[in-house]
């Protein structure tokens, strides 16, 4: 018996010692910035992984083999590995513009399942409002992401609401990712290194939201020399500086952006006393060869200042709203090289204050949410077939939904209020594994155990995650996924508008956490320089939250009495087609989808479509490289109209005092009416300086909404003198030309 045990131990030790561990960091050959999401795979296809958020990879090879490193926009590099090694891989950037996925579909190691890496070079060429580059507008081009009102940066993913997207900036959550009521995004594209977007097949590492994950990482800074980049546009300007702190020991980045929308409108004799600014900073310190510390900061504000001294009432209105985000991350490489740990501490806050008044009557309304969080993730490359992630996170949400201070006549209409600060403690344990069953089949599975504790109780959810990736042939891949998601913080919006002043709340004793089950099936096929992906999804949702009918007080003291919960379901099919042909590149995204809700207390208990149930949503991006330095691009967006609840009639009833009559509305079914479709063409031309120049510059000329077509933003009811009511669909932006100038040196 003893000999048998020794024999088995000997066999096990052989199998373990036969594997070769190769680790390392992957960087940009020019800037020294680490590269995230680089595909790392062997020529035999027996092992593969991707670089993590810090450019680090760890791979176990069953035997000596060639290892390839491939990344969108960079030249592929290969090394032959025959023994345990650590590498610093430097990839050179190519100068091609919009590119298809360069890999063949058969290389499933290179594709992080269900994760879309956003091409930041494409982002720079997209025409937008005022020429301001916008990450979220790029995300809106993806099928399955419905935009809210045209021109705004809301994301409604697969039947979900705007608050159901987990948006992370250097691992810290972002509550309001937009400026100026959703017209611009919070992300300064000069400082973004990497951004991925996911709508299904979620890793158990992610939680707290139902519909999507937008994971954004800032640049760390050039390791070699000081770099300056910036831009001047018609609506805003920006400047970023990054560089080394000391050789091989650290880097830094500082960037700022300032808009002068208010001044621009003044020059046009129009009034929009609104502007924003934001500031990014990051410090990256290499403490030891195995330890790294990163500190990230974001601060931004939207400011409104209006003081109409000439008006009859001497009205003034001021507001300030914005995010403050900080994260500290510590990375540690273990000596066994198979394990990599990350510990993140963050603080994220979003607050607004609105002050207004006339004569001696004043009102001040404020709201704030403040998160403190801690997250630990351990990556473990167990063997050539198995890769594990374990971790835990905890967040203390501290929020004060409403504080109202009044003076003068406002006391007769509103009431003073000072909500007590509320707390919600959200936590989770998770485990996730990637297991290579054979050369064709990889199984990703995980479990997330999450919960929230609040005054008077707690709620818990078990969230299983499953994704099977099957290499059907050398060109085709099939993925089948399931994820259960739970959400403990939610934002309440009225049925007719989404505003940045909509309040965030936590689940309570009488409010259950919304949950969703996301089923996905997708098929990918790549040939030559083209790729096709078709994905179907089915997503039942529970405990969805809406205001009750007739709610007036959107800052309720008794939240549970003001809201109602119900069910939802969304399903659809999405097509992505992209490719290149000589100087021509294209990206087509189309989705056909349905999204329903049913609440006992709304719409007489009948099923109704959601407000942004856009049946058809099509985005077409075309790019043509006229010359090496001259490129033109166009974006055509067509989407079925959004919905609203119309007043379809009126009736008269004696009022409470019986000597007058109230004219009361008859509402149609909830969201029963549809606005006109969005149908918009934007164009852009970019002219770059010579690549050999030390001072690089780029002019961009373009136009948003070339045909000046009304893209419905809201519905306006007009009461005519004869008592008729007429509806009009009002657009936000018409034809807007722009010129912008970018530079870097």
């Amino acid at each position, binding site marked *: 018996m003893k000999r048998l045990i020794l024999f088995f131990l000997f066999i096990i030790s052989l199998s373990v010692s036969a594997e070769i561990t190769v680790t390392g960091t992957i960087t940009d050959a020019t800037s020294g910035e680490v590269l995230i999401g680089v595909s790392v795979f062997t020529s035999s296809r027996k092992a593969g992984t991707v670089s993590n958020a810090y450019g680090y990879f760890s791979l176990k090879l069953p035997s000596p083999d060639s290892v390839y490193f491939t990344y969108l926009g960079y030249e592929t590099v290969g090394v032959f590995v025959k023994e345990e090694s650590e590498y610093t891989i430097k990839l050179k950037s190519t100068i091609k513009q919009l590119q298809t996925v360069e890999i063949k579909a058969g290389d499933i190691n290179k594709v992080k399942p269900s994760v879309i890496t956003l091409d930041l070079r494409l982002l720079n060429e997209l025409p937008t409002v005022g020429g301001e580059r916008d990450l979220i507008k790029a995300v809106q081009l993806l099928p399955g992401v419905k935009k809210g009102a045209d021109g705004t940066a809301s994301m409604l993913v697969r039947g979900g609401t705007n608050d159901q997207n987990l948006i992370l900036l250097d691992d810290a959550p972002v509550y309001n990712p937009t400026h100026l009521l959703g017209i611009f995004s919070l992300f300064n594209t000069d400082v973004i290194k990497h951004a991925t977007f996911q709508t299904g097949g979620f890793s158990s590492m992610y939680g707290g939201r139902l519909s999507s994950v937008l994971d954004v990482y800032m640049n760390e800074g050039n390791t070699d020399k000081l770099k300056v980049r910036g831009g001047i546009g*018609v609506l805003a300007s920006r400047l970023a500086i990054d560089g080394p702190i000391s050789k091989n020991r650290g880097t830094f980045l500082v960037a700022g952006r300032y808009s002068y929308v208010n001044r*621009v409108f003044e020059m*046009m004799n129009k009034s929009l006393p609104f502007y924003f600014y934001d500031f990014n900073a990051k410090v990256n310190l290499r403490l030891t060869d195995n330890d790294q510390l990163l500190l990230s900061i974001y601060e931004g504000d939207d400011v409104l200042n209006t003081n109409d001294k000439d008006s*009859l009432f001497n009205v003034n209105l001021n507001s300030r709203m914005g995010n403050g985000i900080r994260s500290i991350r510590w990375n540690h490489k273990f000596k066994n090289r198979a394990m990599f740990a990350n510990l993140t501490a963050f603080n994220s806050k979003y607050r607004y204050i609105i002050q207004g008044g006339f*004569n001696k*009557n004043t009102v001040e309304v404020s709201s704030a949410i403040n998160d403190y969080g801690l997250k630990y993730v351990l990556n473990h490359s167990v063997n050539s077939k198995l890769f594990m992630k374990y971790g835990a996170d905890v967040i203390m949400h501290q929020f004060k939904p409403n504080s109202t201070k009044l003076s003068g*006549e*406002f006391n*007769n*209409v509103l009431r003073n209020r000072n909500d007590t600060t509320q707390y919600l403690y959200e936590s989770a344990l998770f485990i996730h594994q990637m297991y290579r069953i054979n050369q064709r089949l990889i199984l990703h599975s995980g479990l997330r155990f999450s919960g929230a504790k609040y005054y008077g109780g707690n709620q818990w959810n078990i969230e299983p995650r499953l994704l099977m990736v099957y290499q059907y042939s050398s060109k085709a891949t099939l993925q089948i996924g399931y994820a259960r998601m739970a959400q403990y913080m939610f934002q309440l919006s009225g*049925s007719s508008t989404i505003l940045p002043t909509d309040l965030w709340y936590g689940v309570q004793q009488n409010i259950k956490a919304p949950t969703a089950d996301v089923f996905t099936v997708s098929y990918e096929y790549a040939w030559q320089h083209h790729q096709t992906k078709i994905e179907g999804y089915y997503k039942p949702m529970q405990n969805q939250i809406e*205001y009750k*009918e*007739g709610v*007036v007080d*959107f800052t309720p003291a008794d939240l549970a009495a003001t809201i109602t919960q119900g069910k939802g379901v969304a399903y659809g099919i999405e097509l992505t087609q992209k490719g290149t042909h000589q100087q021509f590149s294209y990206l087509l995204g189309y989705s056909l989808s349905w999204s329903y809700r049913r609440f006992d207390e709304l719409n007489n208990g009948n099923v109704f479509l959601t407000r942004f149930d856009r049946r058809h949503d099509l985005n077409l991006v075309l790019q043509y490289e006229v010359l090496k330095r001259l490129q033109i691009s166009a974006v055509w967006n067509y989407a079925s109209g959004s919905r609203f609840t119309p*007043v*379809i*009639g*009126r*009736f*008269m*009833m*004696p009022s*409470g*005092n019986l*000597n*007058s*009559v*109230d*004219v*009361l*509305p*008859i*509402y*149609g079914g909830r969201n029963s*009416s549809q*606005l*006109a479709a969005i149908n918009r063409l934007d164009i852009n031309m970019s002219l770059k300086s010579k690549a050999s120049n030390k001072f690089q510059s780029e*002019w961009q000329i373009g136009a948003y*909404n070339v045909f000046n*077509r*009304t893209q419905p933003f809201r*519905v*306006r009811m007009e009461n*005519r003198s*004869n*008592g*008729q*009511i007429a*509806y*009009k*669909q009002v*657009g936000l932006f*018409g*034809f*807007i*030309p*722009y*010129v912008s100038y970018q530079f870097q040196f």
Partner: protein
Amino acid sequence: MKKIIILTVGFLSMIICLFSSCTPEPLPLKIADSSPKVVVASQFAFDSSSNQNLLIVILTRSLAVGNGFTPIADSSGLNIPDELRFTNATVEVHTSSGVITCAEVDGGVYVATNISFEAGATAKLTIKQADGTLVADAITPMMTSTSFSMISLARVSNFYEVSYILDDNTKEKNWYVVNYFTGNTRDSGSVTDPGYIARKLTEQKAEFDLFTDKDFNNGTLAVRKNIGASVLDTVVVAVSSISEGYFNFLTVQKRYGSLINQIRGEALTFPTNISNGLGYFTFHQPKLYILTTD
């Protein structure tokens, strides 16, 4: 030199762009109109001149948003345009005592006299066109009357305050409405005065209050209400025990009446007990209290 020219032209182009943007015209939107329905409002009253109970039923028609109308001043004070009045209808009230036909005393206003009130019973309203076609009907419980155990009017500082106590039968669920009627001849402010607007907004809310069992403390409700009456005004306070359905209707009507709701409130579904119609048929007996400020 070339670079300077390019930069100058480029930045001038930016300025030109500022003045080149356009705003598209709004698009019309056609809404499928609702078909007209009969609207029912009812009020039970005691006529002291004839010493008998009266049931007043007001019938109107709803209209689609595309149809215009102009409220008019008329002798009833209800300001209902002629085209919306539902006239020449046969309106009947069915009780256990028999069927009473309501006479049309004014266009769309029907009155039944000598209504015998039977606590705990139900009353059914039927509305037929002149040719006998049934248009709508409704069933409602007959509610017992209720009264204050105490009510008074007092001057406090520069306003008047009504105080009253209402007792509730704790063995059953009850719903109440208290109406306040007062004319304010003193406040003749201007619509350009924000203070006047604010006062008008609050007066709109002071027309009636709704109470349920939850508002009572051990079966007793004590209220002190600022009604802002002027020196010369008479104040009439009416209290009624109403059905749960009518309570829900008034709750929604009161919500919609606020200016804030009309601007940004959530859509409302008005409850109704009228089959094929709108409004509410109620059969409750208000108890009136007339208070004078002198």
